[in-house]
């Protein structure tokens, strides 16, 4: 195929991708952009050109081992509903925008740790990006039948493609200054590319399996007679098993910690619930991608038998061999998609890291804190844009100047091993409170040195053909220091060997340093929040523990410099509203400090945000116990808030009833007064009757109000009881006095014969109030003829019981308890409306209960009601 045609197709293809990204950015609210499918597909950025070509290459030379790269993810992804949700929640809560930010924040916003993580990532990923460029360039050469590599950069198509990708990533990746915002344009484009690469790969798989051969059985039969076939298709004993296990573990770590995966899974996550789709859809995607790998590999082995053909290129060469240029073009485009999506996301993730965790905190902070907001946002964006270009161009020159003639897979795996050095600090930080920043730094450093010794140095020696005995005989000829067989360990292949030793030492040093030295209070504070994220997630700003002095004006100045006047004002207003804080407050509290740090984190990374805020805030150290106490208290405050709401509801209902009860007498008063006012020829008798009613209804209103206030005072404990030693007999006799005349008038007998005396501690006025209330009910309800009211006491070791009885018709059994409720009025009172407010018994109960006594109602046999209350005796 002519290069002109291929370049034209590439340009058209890129134009489509650019347009899709542009459209998605414009329609960022659309359902087509925001759904779990786009999210899942964007995760498939995991499948790079390496998957496209390298898997086949690996399958052709070493059988099924390629599967380990996908087994790890498939095993770990189902746990994401819990694990990844936790990571996403923490990240969103703290406006984290990169992996380096995540780790550095967990260890107390450690600037150096963030920089270290960034360097490790750049070290691991830049060669990997080179590899993608190499894949593009090689496959371009194959499809256009070019066999000479371009000498001058300006003649190299790959160079222009790299520049176009950098423009794409820089344009769509820096739409917002806040890097923790989602990049919907890029993600939608990546999702589209994921579909393209899968579909084209399936097409070529079906073509090889069913067109070039007669189905899987046919390929198997033909391939099985090739030499080494049996050995390739087995795990190869226990040693091989270890290798399989470690490779799966390695890919498990990679799917979570590769910067591009962290970017698409965590930063670009719109809703947590998307994870529920991911846990089955993404493994399915990986499975589909791998169905035909082994058949293409076998097919290539059969067709290119005894020819010197690079197995990595089987996917492309098989259709070309059969003169099917169109299919070859599809394969090329699929691989191209896989490569460019990796380049774009990786360079975006790395550039954010580079700017937020390295360049800004170490170089630009002082300048930023002096200049104006508009300049600052522009400079932040520019730093990121330049970083993207820089990374892609470095990757390009790396590919140009080093002979990367290792198979695609091995360079991919090396980058995995380097990234895996972040695993102990990352996962340890999520689940282990004691993990400290010193431990993380030493661990990562040790792991990296060991990776260098056991993998990188031998590889460089090997690929650059340097003559030395280092690899074969070990450092200084010491055999146990042989890089591929460290300490005599011989069962592993180089990659798994390096992974094993580096991770072992890394984790060991991390734990050891963490255990032996306590981290600063600040990192312990964050440790608590990361490890117990579910408990503290709902607290948000409130979970931040901070002690010190700060002024709102200073913090506002810093924010304005980075966010601009308008955004700062808006953010602060929202904050004040959320926490119901007075806008004129001058002294900032912990919540504002934390809130501002988070606001800045998205733009300049957590470490820089921390430094900037710290520059205007005077912070004091607090101990771990204090930290935990404050966190627990905030938690409790949140819970008691719920209780308060419940109580509020009850109070609302109570107020409703009160309103209703108050309206009734007011209705009478108003109606009667209006008649008196309007009607001049009303006779005197009626007039008097009306006025008397108005007076009595007014009394009812004030009685009601007094009772309500009384009840409230008692219930809230606002009124202290006036506790004294009293004679219970005296109190009873005092209470009964006002009823004597009434008794005579109504012909009711009073029986006082069973009153014994005792000295009891109580508030006499209050107890008198209870007795009067019980007596007035008894007088009201006692039999109309031969009425009888009896009051008696019963004294034992612990308490005094006072009983008031009548001989009326008693209380319905189902009302014995409810009569003590507020505003409860018996069904029996149909004809004569009671004088009471409906609160008498409720108040009595409240009084008795605050004396630690009990009150209850029973029915007398054969007739009458019997109400009893007790008062405890304290006989010391």
């Amino acid at each position, binding site marked *: 195929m002519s290069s002109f045609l291929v370049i034209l197709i590439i340009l058209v293809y890129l134009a489509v991708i650019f347009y899709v990204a542009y459209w998605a950015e414009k329609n960022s609210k659309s359902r087509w952009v925001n759904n779990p499918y786009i999210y899942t597909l964007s995760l498939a950025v995991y499948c790079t050109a390496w998957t496209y070509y390298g898997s086949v290459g690996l399958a052709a030379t070493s059988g099924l081992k390629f599967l380990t790269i996908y087994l790890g993810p498939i095993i770990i992804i189902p746990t994401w509903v819990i694990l990844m949700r936790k990571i996403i929640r923490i990240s969103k809560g703290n406006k984290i925008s990169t992996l380096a930010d995540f780790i550095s924040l967990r260890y107390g916003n450690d600037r150096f740790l963030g920089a270290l993580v960034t360097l490790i990532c750049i070290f691991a990923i830049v060669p990997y990006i080179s590899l993608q460029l190499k894949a593009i360039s090689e496959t371009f050469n194959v499809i256009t039948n070019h066999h000479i590599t371009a000498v001058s950069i300006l003649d190299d198509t790959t160079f222009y493609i790299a520049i176009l990708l950098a423009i794409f990533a820089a344009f769509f990746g820096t739409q917002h200054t806040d890097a923790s915002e989602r990049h919907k344009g890029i993600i939608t484009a990546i999702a589209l590319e994921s579909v393209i690469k899968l579909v084209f790969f399936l097409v070529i798989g079906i073509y090889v399996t069913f067109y070039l051969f007669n189905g899987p059985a046919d390929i198997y039969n033909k391939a099985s007679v090739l030499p080494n076939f049996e050995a390739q298709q087995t795990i190869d004993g226990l040693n091989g098993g270890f290798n399989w296990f470690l490779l799966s573990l390695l890919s498990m770590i990679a799917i979570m910690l590769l910067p591009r995966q962290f970017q698409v899974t965590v930063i670009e996550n719109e809703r947590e619930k998307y994870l529920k789709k991911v846990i089955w859809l993404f493994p399915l995607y990986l499975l589909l991608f791998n169905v035909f790998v082994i058949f293409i590999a076998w097919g290539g082995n059969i067709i290119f038998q005894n020819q010197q053909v690079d197995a990595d290129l089987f996917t492309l060469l098989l259709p070309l061999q059969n003169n099917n240029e169109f299919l070859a073009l599809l394969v090329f485009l699929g691989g191209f998609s896989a490569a460019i999506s990796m380049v774009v996301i990786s360079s975006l993730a790395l550039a954010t890291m580079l700017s937020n965790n390295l360049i800004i905190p170490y170089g630009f902070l002082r300048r930023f804190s002096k200049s104006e907001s508009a300049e600052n946002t522009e400079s932040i964006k520019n730093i990121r844009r330049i970083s993207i270009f820089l990374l892609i161009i470095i990757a390009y020159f790396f590919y140009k100047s080093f002979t990367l003639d290792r198979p695609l897979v091995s360079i991919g795996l090396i980058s995995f091993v380097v990234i895996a050095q972040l695993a102990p600090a990352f996962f340890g930080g999520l689940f282990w409170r004691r993990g400290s920043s010193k431990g993380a730094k030493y661990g990562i450093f040790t792991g990296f040195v060991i990776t260098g010794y056991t993998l990188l140095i031998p590889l460089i020696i090997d690929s650059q053909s340097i003559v030395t005995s280092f690899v074969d005989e070990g450092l200084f000829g010491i055999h146990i220091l042989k890089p591929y067989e460290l300490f005599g360990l011989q069962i592993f292949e180089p990659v798994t060997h390096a992974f094993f030793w580096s991770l072992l030492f890394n984790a060991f040093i991390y734990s050891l340093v963490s255990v032996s030295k306590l981290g600063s209070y600040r990192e312990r504070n964050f440790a608590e929040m990361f490890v117990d994220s579910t408990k503290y997630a709902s607290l948000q700003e409130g979970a931040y523990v901070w002690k010190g002095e700060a002024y709102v004006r200073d913090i506002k100045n810093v924010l304005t410099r980075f966010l601009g006047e308008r955004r700062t004002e808006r953010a602060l207003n929202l904050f004040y509203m959320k926490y119901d804080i007075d806008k004129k407050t001058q002294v900032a509290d912990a919540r504002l400090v934390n809130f501002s740090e988070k606001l800045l984190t998205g733009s300049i990374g957590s470490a820089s945000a921390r430094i900037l805020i710290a520059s205007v805030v005077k912070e004091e150290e607090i101990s771990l116990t204090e930290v935990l106490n404050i966190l627990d208290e905030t938690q409790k405050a949140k819970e008691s808030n719920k209780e308060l709401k419940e109580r509020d509801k009850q109070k609302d209902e109570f107020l409703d009833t009160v309103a209703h009860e108050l309206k009734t*007498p007011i209705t*009478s*008063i108003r109606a009667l007064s*209006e008649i008196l006012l309007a009607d001049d020829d009303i006779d005197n008798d009626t007039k008097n009757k009306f006025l008397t*009613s108005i007076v009595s209804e007014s009394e009812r209103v004030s009685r009601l109000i007094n009772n309500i206030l009384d009840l409230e005072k008692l219930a809230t404990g606002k009124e202290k009881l006036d506790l004294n030693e009293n004679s219970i007999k005296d109190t009873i006799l005092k209470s009964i006095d006002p009823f004597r005349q009434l008794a005579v008038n109504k012909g009711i007998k009073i029986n006082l014969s069973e009153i014994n005396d005792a000295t009891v501690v109580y508030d006499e006025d209050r107890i008198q109030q209870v007795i009067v209330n019980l007596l007035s009910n008894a007088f009201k309800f006692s039999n109309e003829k031969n009425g009888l009211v009896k009051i008696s006491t019963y004294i034992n070791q612990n308490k005094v019981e006072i009983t008031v009885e009548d001989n009326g018709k008693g209380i319905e059994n189902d009302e014995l308890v409810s009569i003590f409720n507020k505003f409860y*009025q018996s069904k029996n009172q*149909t*004809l004569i*409306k009671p004088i009471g407010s409906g609160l008498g018994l409720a108040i009595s109960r409240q009084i008795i209960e605050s004396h630690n006594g009990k009150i209850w109602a029973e029915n007398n046999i054969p007739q009458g009601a019997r109400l009893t209350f007790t008062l405890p005796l304290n006989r010391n």
Partner: protein
Amino acid sequence: MKKILIVDDEPNIVMSLEYIFKKENFLVYIARDGEEAIEIVENTIPDIILLDIMMPNVDGYQVLNYLKNSETLSKIKVIFLSAKNKLSDIELGLQLGADKYISKPFAIKNLVKEVKELLNKK
């Protein structure tokens, strides 16, 4: 002469209503609760009922239901007079078929006017 039934368990409210409607030349009947109200309705078939809601035993809603389930009684005009004045209460009352819902405390002139208007409407 139009017949009006006043149903309320508050004696002073009843007293004022009784006075004013007698003055307006109504034949006034009085019930102190729902049960009594139904008895009177069956015997006299009033033109209009002023009905309280919160009453012991049979409440205002139940009385209205009773009326609406009977062919002969369902045409009697009913005005709810209640201290329950939340929007939901009012909506419920009207939904059950009351012709008017007047909140307590009410202006007595206005009540008389509403009663007359309702009776004049065919």
